[in-house]
């Protein structure tokens, strides 16, 4: 038996990943909506240290691309000129974390643009769009999970603690929500709204919809924990001293639900990021030119993009480290909350 992994380890990994996305302005070399119509669908470019003549350069550089002869969409490196990468360069203006105005970027180029992860139909830098798109997708996931857990925990506690007809009513409602075909519900909701909504409105709509839809499952889990917690003898004992419902909930019952809520949070965030991606992919989410992981993938709906430009799939890879981080965190939290706490403390090492 191995010692279960510490949740803190995964928490640190996730914080780093989120930090990169939150500071997208610094890590992205360009403004995500800045177009360059001369360079549509440029493939990812390579960074070199050794040039075509075999000389070693101390500063990494790249060659600009030019159309291959006799082709209209195949590019090759033009080795006549080298363009040096500049680190901690000043470039497009942005606001760090949406507040602090800044111009500093991790790297930049003078003159020709470098597309490390290729460019899209309008010559926009994919790397920058993926980083900025992560802000929208992750924020939607986090806020959606927050709304869901708040609703779920409130409803679960109310149902479990007060019981009786309230429990019956809330749990039937939860079953109804679990059974709803929410994607179609969203279509219907979207049909009510005007054709063009602002990115902010669309974002809030997505958050509210995914937040409202998911509460039923955490509510049922929390209800279960509350049902067993309120029958514990220490709750009875406290009632026996004359404790009020509010006191019992605050001091004894809510702390019992904490591990379930945290585990649910770690499971729900990636689920909701995926939900945002689905909605944006279908065009129901955040509209262009703002990028999100979902609408970056939406170009794949065009057949020529699907078969010709493999780098347009890259936004789908961006979510992988986040998913692994969140799911590992969830399982670490779950193991920590398991009833075999003493074994964990005594640090058995039988493997």
């Amino acid at each position, binding site marked *: 038996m191995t010692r279960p992994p510490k949740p803190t380890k995964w928490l640190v990994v996730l914080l780093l990943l989120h930090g990169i996305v939150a500071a997208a302005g610094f890590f992205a070399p360009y403004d995500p909506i800045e177009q360059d119509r001369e360079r549509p669908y440029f493939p990812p470019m390579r960074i070199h240290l050794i040039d075509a003549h075999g000389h070693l350069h101390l500063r990494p550089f790249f060659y600009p691309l030019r159309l291959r002869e006799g082709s209209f969409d195949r590019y090759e490196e033009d080795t006549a000129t080298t363009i040096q990468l500049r680190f901690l360069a000043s470039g497009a203006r942005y606001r760090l974390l949406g507040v602090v105005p800044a111009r500093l970027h991790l790297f930049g180029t003078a003159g020709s643009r470098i597309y490390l992860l290729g460019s899209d139909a309008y010559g926009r830098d994919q790397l920058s769009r993926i980083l900025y798109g992560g802000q929208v997708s992750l924020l939607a996931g986090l806020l959606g999970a927050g709304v869901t857990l708040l609703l779920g925990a409130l409803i679960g506690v109310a149902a479990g603690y007060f019981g009786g007809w309230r429990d019956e009513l809330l749990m039937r409602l939860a079953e109804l929500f679990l059974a709803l075909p929410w994607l179609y519900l969203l279509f219907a909701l979207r049909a009510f709204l005007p054709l063009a909504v602002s990115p902010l409105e669309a974002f809030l709509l997505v958050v509210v919809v995914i937040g409202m839809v998911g509460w039923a499952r955490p509510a049922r889990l929390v209800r279960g924990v509350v049902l067993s917690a309120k029958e*514990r003898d*220490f709750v*009875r*004992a406290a009632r*026996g*001293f004359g404790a009020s419902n509010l006191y019992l909930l605050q001091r004894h019952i809510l702390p019992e639900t904490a591990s379930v809520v945290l585990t649910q949070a770690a499971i729900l965030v990636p689920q909701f990021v995926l939900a945002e991606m689905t909605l944006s992919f279908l065009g129901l989410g955040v509209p262009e030119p703002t990028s999100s992981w979902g609408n970056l993938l939406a170009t794949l709906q065009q057949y020529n993009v699907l078969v010709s430009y493999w780098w347009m799939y890259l936004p789908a890879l961006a979510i992988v480290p986040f998913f692994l981080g969140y799911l590992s965190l969830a399982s670490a939290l779950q193991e920590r909350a398991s009833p075999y706490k003493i074994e964990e403390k005594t640090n058995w090492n039988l493997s």
Partner: protein
Amino acid sequence: MQPLLKVENLVKHYGAGRSARSKDKLAALDGVSLSVLPKTTTALVGESGSGKSTLALCIACLEHPTSGSISFEGIDLASLDENQLRLLRPQIQLVFQDPASSLNPRWTALEIVSEPFFVQRRYSKPDRAVRALRLLDRVAISRKMAARSACELSGGQKQRLAIARALALEPKLIILDEALSALDCSVQAQISNLLLELQASLGLTYLFITHDFGMAAHLADQIAVMDRGRVVESGSAENVLYSPNHEATRALLAATPRFSEPPAELVHA
């Protein structure tokens, strides 16, 4: 003498919800009458499922009886509203069978024993800590243990802690619901002596719920025997132990383990 606690014709049905039909109802208590004199120990003996714990919960106002009355110092508990009940609750305290479940495992011993002060908003903050430490001293839990969380204490220490917590609000009646059953023999002896000592110094009244006639004989002045939701026999400890009238009492007495006479060849050896 005026009894401290008087239970009359108490009935408690479970599963009496809206959807349950009358024949599905389970009578946990089926007309229990009992009275407990102040500063005495009354043992309530019965096999599992005879309704002892339900009676304990009803007396401690943690369950509502279906019918019948409980009066404490002449006050009918059913007539009290929530606020009056809050003031009366400190008078009646319950010690549970399993201390692992009756103490919040996340809390330290000191937090647990001072919880009743917080709930009842008694005493100033520094005063609470002093009183809590004094209570822990009473049940022989050291200062070093006071900072440990409840799950780190041994079974005997946990039960002593639970007793200290029950004493915090200076109750008149303590209901011990199988409070010794989960402990091993030497710890049982230690805690039963602690209980006797506390009774002598604080003038406590005990309602001692058990299935063990041996313990009842050791602690009790009065014994009441319960069977299937009814008190079938009650009286002074000697009478019940040495001249039992009811079949259920005899069956329980016969089931109490004891040493048989030693074989003759060992007596002289």
